[in-house]
């Protein structure tokens, strides 16, 4: 297990450098420099020049990259053009809501995906099978924002069961029930956009596993069908599903941007859109760095989970 983890982390190193170099190049392409926010009206060109030197912007690109990386590790991402405060602070208050939304959506999507996938595989042509394929088509073909509009129209406007957007009815009370009510629709929608892939993967790998010899053997040993399906077959069928979940996480982030925007959820996605409209480049790059790093960490976590599921990978 240690060896496996070490290997995964070693593989991550070039990926990390590749990603940060790409982001660095991108941030150099964006107009404006970190100095801009510090320039005041009474500065002479010489002062500005000095500021450039102090910030290291006169140095060659690769040195600048290393320094940028150094600052990144210290958690310094510059200052927002829009608010003038530190980017880490601006992003910091958005992390919680985004994690809450994406986390809930992921849990819902995995639960629904695995459940429906298994039932669809075990009872083909049943109502569950049709529901599973219906949901997976909606997930694959209906854009989240369109479905979101339909949901808002039905559940918020017509039926008035749920609020149309935001995170609190009253931000000062921090009532959890209230947050849950606001969370329900965006989380379900984001979940639906993810779950189609999980359903299809679970269904097909379940069908494949059920043809395996060890399933036949478990039956021949006299294990009850429930044990055969939910213990012997499902454990093995989960392996490709885990891979699929890991690979889908970047899309979860993308989906969160759209969902947060539609529902006015105060997370990093709506911050991203807001920052783009304000051309707030430090925040844009900050969000990019944060999310890519988060995706990398989640990928490592998924690798660990995969190793826990599959002993063959472990040793």
């Amino acid at each position, binding site marked *: 297990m240690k060896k496996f983890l070490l290997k995964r982390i070693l593989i991550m190193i070039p990926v990390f450098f590749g990603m940060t170099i790409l982001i660095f190049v991108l941030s150099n392409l964006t107009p404006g420099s970190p100095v801009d926010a510090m320039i005041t009206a009474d500065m002479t060109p010489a002062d500005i020049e000095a500021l450039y030197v102090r910030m290291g912007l006169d140095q060659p690109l690769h040195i600048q990259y290393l320094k940028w990386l150094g600052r990144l590790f210290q958690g310094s991402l510059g200052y927002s053009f829009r608010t003038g405060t530190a980017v880490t602070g601006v992003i910091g208050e958005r992390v919680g809501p985004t994690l809450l939304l994406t986390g809930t959506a992921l849990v819902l999507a995995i639960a629904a995906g695995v459940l429906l996938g298994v039932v669809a595989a075990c009872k083909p042509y049943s109502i569950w099978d049709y529901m599973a394929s219906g949901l997976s088509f909606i997930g694959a073909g209906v854009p989240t924002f369109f479905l979101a509009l339909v949901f*808002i129209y039905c559940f918020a406007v017509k039926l008035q069961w749920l609020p149309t957007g935001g995170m609190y009815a009253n931000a000062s009370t921090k009532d959890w029930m209230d947050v849950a009510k606001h969370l329900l629709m965006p989380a379900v929608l984001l979940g639906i956009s993810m779950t189609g892939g999980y359903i299809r993967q679970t269904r097909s790998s379940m069908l494949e596993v059920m043809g395996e010899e060890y399933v036949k053997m478990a039956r021949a040993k006299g294990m009850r069908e429930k044990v055969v399906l939910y213990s012997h077959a499902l454990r093995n069928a989960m392996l490709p599903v885990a891979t699929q979940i890991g690979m889908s996480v970047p899309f979860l982030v993308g989906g969160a941007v759209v969902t947060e925007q539609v529902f006015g959820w105060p997370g990093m996605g709506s911050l991203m859109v807001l920052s783009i409209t304000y051309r707030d480049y430090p925040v844009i790059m900050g969000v990019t760095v944060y999310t890519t790093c988060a995706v990398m960490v989640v990928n490592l976590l998924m690798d660990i989970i995969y190793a826990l599921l599959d002993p063959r990978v472990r040793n």
Partner: protein
Amino acid sequence: MDRKRKENVRNSFWRNTVQKFMKHRVAMFSLVFLTVEILAVVLLPLLMDLDPYTTNVGCFSMAPDDRFLLGTDDVGRDVFSRLVYGGRVSILVGFVSALLSAVIGIPLGLLAGYYGGIIRMTIMRLVDIFMSFPAMIIQLVLVTVLGASATSVMLVIGLLGWTGFARLTYSKVISVKEQEYVEAARASGATNFRQMFQYILPNSLAPLFVQFSFSVASAILQESGLSFLGLGVPVPTASWGNMIYSAQSLSTLVYRPWMWVPAGMILVATVLSINFIGDGLRDALDPKMKI
């Protein structure tokens, strides 16, 4: 020999595939739908007097009537015309982006599979890097850098969508490479280039067609997503995504459904039918194919 016989084998393979595809009813229906739709968005502007740009003063946000088949939007533009012109943009963006992804991804996958070693390492690591990027975020940054336009939307979607093609080509090439006819070509002194493009690629094409159709659907979805955020195809150019953008205002959402519902429906129908065509193609080529 057997050039002729080989050709026969290949022809019968494709004929067989076409026959199987025709039997796939949903896929056939989707193909007909898509063909009609493409013909419509291409030909209707030539046949009808459609004007998606003029803002008809005094006709803001009008419900459908004789003059405006699907009503007008909030600045008085004809929604039906915008739907047709938007279709041109959305479908074009979908195909061009997918093509761009294929043009980048297939040669890279071919190189990685054919040469192995350090080339394979580099390319597949690059695939890893791109796959762990949250594509949407990078697309947003790129669009900001490049400036919003239909061209830059195609570019950013295409640039980030190639990993699927590369991975698929790679895995296919690895298995095809070991086949006898490639070995024979190698033994008879075919150049690397010839081996790759004349022998290996044609025999790896089948799953790539399937991947392409899914890629088109996904590109159309991505374009609509970016445009919906107001960061994709910019107005006044119409796209299905930026037509739905108007529904972000609650009053449009509730009281003026003609502005966004048709665009949403046609978008869903298009994406679904392309996906169904992909499914049908996959089943016809090889039901066990994993894409």
